[in-house]
């Protein structure tokens, strides 16, 4: 066995992930190999240093609690009882394809900007339990990129055509209850926020702020648009 292999075993041994036999063999090798002994010294010193913990700031917990208390606690997705009332804002409310216009900020800007008209409606609160629909108002939102987290991988969509196609497919048709779902991808849309794309036995949904919505696009169309 060469030294490289012993180094790999050494790393696993520090983490308690080797068998007794492997450990014995490694220790025997270290006794006779100066280079590996140096590496062992380095690995263990670094491990000791990295696992050194400092105390969390005194106010961390207090600040966290202050922030979460500002957030209105929303029900779990399967508690949604707002029927088919479409009421949310921004991305998952309505991103009108007809209203999307393309423009570039400048000639030397490689990243084009998709400017979308987003119909914003009032949010149905848990307390009211009723649809308090206000007059839609137009909000211009510039989306230069969408961050996608999927299967442990992250990527950023910057192509304008791909952004428009994806946001078009994620337009919302209606609010629906949703439970027992698997998260397929998490999208972070600059200027609009985050939403999860989830799949149930029956359909694909978008979930934002604990509310589930049926997108225009099918699962296949959305996955293709993500790329």
């Amino acid at each position, binding site marked *: 066995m060469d*030294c490289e292999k012993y180094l790999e075993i050494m790393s696993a041994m520090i983490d308690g992930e080797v068998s007794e036999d492997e450990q014995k063999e490694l220790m025997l090798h270290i006794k006779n190999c100066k280079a590996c002994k140096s590496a062992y010294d380095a690995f263990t010193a670094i491990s000791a240093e990295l696992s*050194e913990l*400092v105390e969390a700031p005194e106010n961390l917990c207090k600040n*966290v609690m202050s922030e979460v208390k500002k957030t209105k606690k929303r029900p779990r997705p399967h508690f949604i009882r707002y029927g088919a009332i479409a009421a949310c804002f921004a991305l998952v409310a309505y991103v009108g394809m007809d209203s999307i216009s393309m423009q570039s900020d400048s000639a030397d800007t490689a990243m084009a900007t998709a400017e979308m008209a987003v119909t914003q409606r009032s949010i149905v609160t848990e307390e009211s339990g009723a649809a308090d629909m206000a007059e839609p108002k137009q909000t211009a939102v510039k989306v230069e990129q969408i961050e996608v987290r999927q299967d442990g991988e992250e990527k950023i969509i910057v192509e304008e055509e791909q952004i428009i196609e994806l946001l078009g497919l994620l337009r919302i048709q209606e609010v629906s209850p949703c439970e027992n779902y698997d998260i397929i991808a998490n999208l972070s849309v600059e200027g609009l926020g985050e939403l999860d794309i989830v799949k149930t036995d029956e359909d694909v949904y978008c979930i934002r702020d604990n509310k589930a919505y049926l997108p225009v696009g099918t699962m296949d169309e959305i996955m293709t648009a993500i790329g």
Partner: protein
Amino acid sequence: MTREEETRLINSVINGNVEDFELLVLEHQKLVYNIALKMVGNAHDAEDVAQDAFVKAYNSLQNFRGDSKFSVWIYRLTSNVALDFLRTKKRHNHISFSQYNTEDEPMEIEVSDSRYAPETEFEKKELQEAVNRGLLELPPDHREILLLRELSGLSYDEIAERLELEYGTVKSRIFRARKKLCNILEKDWNFYGFSSSKK
């Protein structure tokens, strides 16, 4: 805190008892903060990242399904928040360690005779800063997996499950991270004499 207690608290928070979230924060804040600190490299930003991670955890608590430990879930979430932070701020190459010391708590490394043992406080501090500086030079995915192991003490199986990697990939990635860190330290310090073991 037992897993049963943790599950009860999580359900309680989901059902609207916000105050119970404080117990979860108190239980995990030290490790969450330390992961954030070692990921971003300075205390000020680490506090922001840790706070953001907890708020995100609160807002998405209903997505925690309980098939893995809550600690594994929130540590992974913290490192994701830290990676987002680093990507957004692009601070990989100019991070200060000025606020990053533990002078009040002298570092004690329990080592055998064969290990490197810093003899002075200066050497201890130098080692600490060198390791943390080297850590920031690692690719983010190597830094993340090494910290998940070193700080949270997760087993390779647990890391594999959380990162959706094969056991062998976890093992080799942690090894490569350690070796890269050694090489970085050797380049900066020429201290460990590690080059003679490189192939």
